[in-house]
């Protein structure tokens, strides 16, 4: 929220001239009948996407020359708002003259781009970006029907944000590479979640399979696990500086058990590790003497020196031992 957001946007004023022109007068609205296509020796493919109950529905007609796989004619019918009509119209226009294999590469981003008046100004406001997504979905469906394959087979990756076409793989990678901690950062880096906002969290414009909040949480958890695993590996390979605190305490205990404790116990004393603090120059190990060691003169001189030098030798030269 800031000055420009406080009064709310005038949605319709943000449409490009192309959008409003096509809303009012779509060029490819209409139908192609089976008989018409047959008469010209072509194959008709008709695909539906969406439904009135969703608030958006589109029917795409492709008349395909079976010898060349080329879409020679295309029409659409749409139940939807004006931007859905304009998007369908441009989608149809983009299909004409392409082969099915070429057409299936058309995405909602191409459709939105074709609706722009100039290349740098979006054709529709962010919350309307979603209207062109259906164009992409229905093309895949039509191509699937023609080629006799599952429309999902055209999709090489899982798309989380349909408006900006950002995949699950990209999102995870960007979160990890840039150590992103919030959904806003994800939107800044990838544009995902910046448009209709459905993919941010449940309860938006439409239900999604993946949500940014969950992806963020899962990826952060993965990152933590990777860090832990790295630390654990470091522990077994003996790099004291890279261990987690628990691993460090365990390692110190193990060295003390092996080399020091027996001598202390012989004299009726013992020691325990209280804390370990890693600084730039030193790793400070705070210990407490127990039993007879407590107050023994040697505990601050010879014994301390013995403990410290053993730990330095076995674990790290940066270690300092500080009795408290």
């Amino acid at each position, binding site marked *: 929220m800031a000055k420009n957001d406080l009064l*709310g*946007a005038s*949605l*319709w004023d943000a449409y490009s001239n192309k959008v409003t022109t096509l*809303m*009012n007068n*779509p060029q490819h*609205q209409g*139908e*192609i*009948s*089976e008989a018409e296509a047959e008469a010209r020796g072509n194959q*008709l*493919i*008709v*695909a*539906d*996407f*969406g*439904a*009135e*109950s*969703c*608030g*958006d*529905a*589109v*029917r795409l*007609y492709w008349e395909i020359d079976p010898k060349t796989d080329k879409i020679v004619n295309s029409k659409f*019918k*749409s*139940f*939807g*708002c*004006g931007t*859905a*009509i304009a998007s369908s119209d441009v989608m149809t226009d983009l299909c004409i003259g392409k082969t099915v294999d070429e057409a299936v590469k058309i995405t909602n981003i191409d459709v939105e781009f074709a609706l722009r008046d100039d290349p740098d100004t979006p054709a529709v406001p962010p*919350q309307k970006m*979603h209207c062109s997504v*259906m164009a992409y*979905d229905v093309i895949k*469906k*039509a191509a699937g*029907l023609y080629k006799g394959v599952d429309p999902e087979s055209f999709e090489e990756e899982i798309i989380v944000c349909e408006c900006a076409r950002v995949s699950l793989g990209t999102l995870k990678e960007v979160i990890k590479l840039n150590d992103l901690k919030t959904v806003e950062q994800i939107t800044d880096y990838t544009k995902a979640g910046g448009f*209709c906002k459905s993919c941010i969290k449940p309860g938006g*414009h*439409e*239900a*999604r*399979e993946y949500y940014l909040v969950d992806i963020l949480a899962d990826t952060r958890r993965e990152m933590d696990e990777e860090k832990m695993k790295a630390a654990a590996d470091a522990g077994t390979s003996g790099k004291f500086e890279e261990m987690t605190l628990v691993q460090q305490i365990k390692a110190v205990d193990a060295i003390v058990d092996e080399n020091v404790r027996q001598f202390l116990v012989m004299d009726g004393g013992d020691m325990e590790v209280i804390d370990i603090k890693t600084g730039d120059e030193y790793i400070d190990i705070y210990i407490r003497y127990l039993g007879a060691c407590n107050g023994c003169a040697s505990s601050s001189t010879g014994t301390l020196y013995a403990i410290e030098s053993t730990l330095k030798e076995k674990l790290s030269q940066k270690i300092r031992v500080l009795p408290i």
Partner: protein
Amino acid sequence: MQVYLDNNATTMTDPAVVEAMQPFFSEIYGNPNSLHKFGTASHPALRNAMNQLYSAINAADEDDIVITSCATESNNWVLKSVWVDHILNGDKNHIVTSEVEHPAILSTCKFLEEQGVKVTYLPVNDQGIVEAHTVKSFITEKTALVTIMWASNETGMIFPIKEIGEICKEKGVLFHTDGVQAVGKIPVDLQDVHVDFMSMSAHKFHGPKGVGALYIKNSQPLTPLMHGGEHMGGRRSGTLNVPYIVGMGKAIELATENIEEKMASIRAKRDRLEDALLELPDTFVVGDRENRTPNTILISIKGVEGEGMLWDLNNTQIGASTGSACASEDLEANSVMLAIGADNELAHTGIRLSLSRFTTDAEIDYTIAQFKNAVARLRAISSSYAIQKPTKGGEALECELHHH
């Protein structure tokens, strides 16, 4: 010609109201709380406005009508202060409301739920109203408040406020009604019905925006929402908004004098419009006319998406709504359509037309013609009316991934 048919969202301020307000900006501008003559100069007009308000809703002298900034404030005040008085500092923990209330009620209830209050959202019947016996069956010993709107902003349907009031009185539960869509549209008599609190807003009855009121029966206690100076008897602080209070008084007087006559005149135009639009095949209007505010039509047009229809109407200079003005930007299905159990398909095809006493017969004629043209154009584009069936396997499943 341009036609404004979105009077449930807001109304034109009656020029007579603007005229009544005019002296209280630059001529009589003193603070009414001041002792000097600059301050006291506004007192007669303020007293007159209060009389106009009391008489318009037939409030008793022992009741309070406290001026607020809007009905949203009034609604927040009741809900939050009942929470403070009877839940935080009492032994109640429950509020009863309906699924179709205005966001000023629903969002506040959601907030209170987050604070630990139990809220029951009552369903509506196929007429879009909450039935009194439903309210009765959900009141418990822990119920602090029942809040049910008097009339729906979306459908215009009038709720059984008298019966619900009796039930609340009998059960000893506080009763609040959001009267925003009732006051000025239908007779509101607060000595005939039992209501503890009622919210209202001036801009819905040709008064100015930014001023509303809360009616409080018998001046009963309700912790203030706005703390400050001793304005409005300490019930609602903030310097009195003199011109707007004067404007609200004038507006409510103009709206409610001879209200039966005004209702009949608006209703005749509304019914004519409704009958004409229902000549279109595959359409229906929500709710029985006899039990509806006389200015409202919520019509569903098969195959025509609501926002697309608004666009076409706007192109012909007609202003309408897809339901709630608050909802028209967030692409949601009409929540009232869903709540009344209308087919999911129809939730996106609702268009609300709301008239006012300024709507003319010529405007109705123009609207009928333009509306029919728009439906014809959009149905010609609509996939719902396409003839050629999809290729086998190309049919859409009901709402695939894209659903609300």
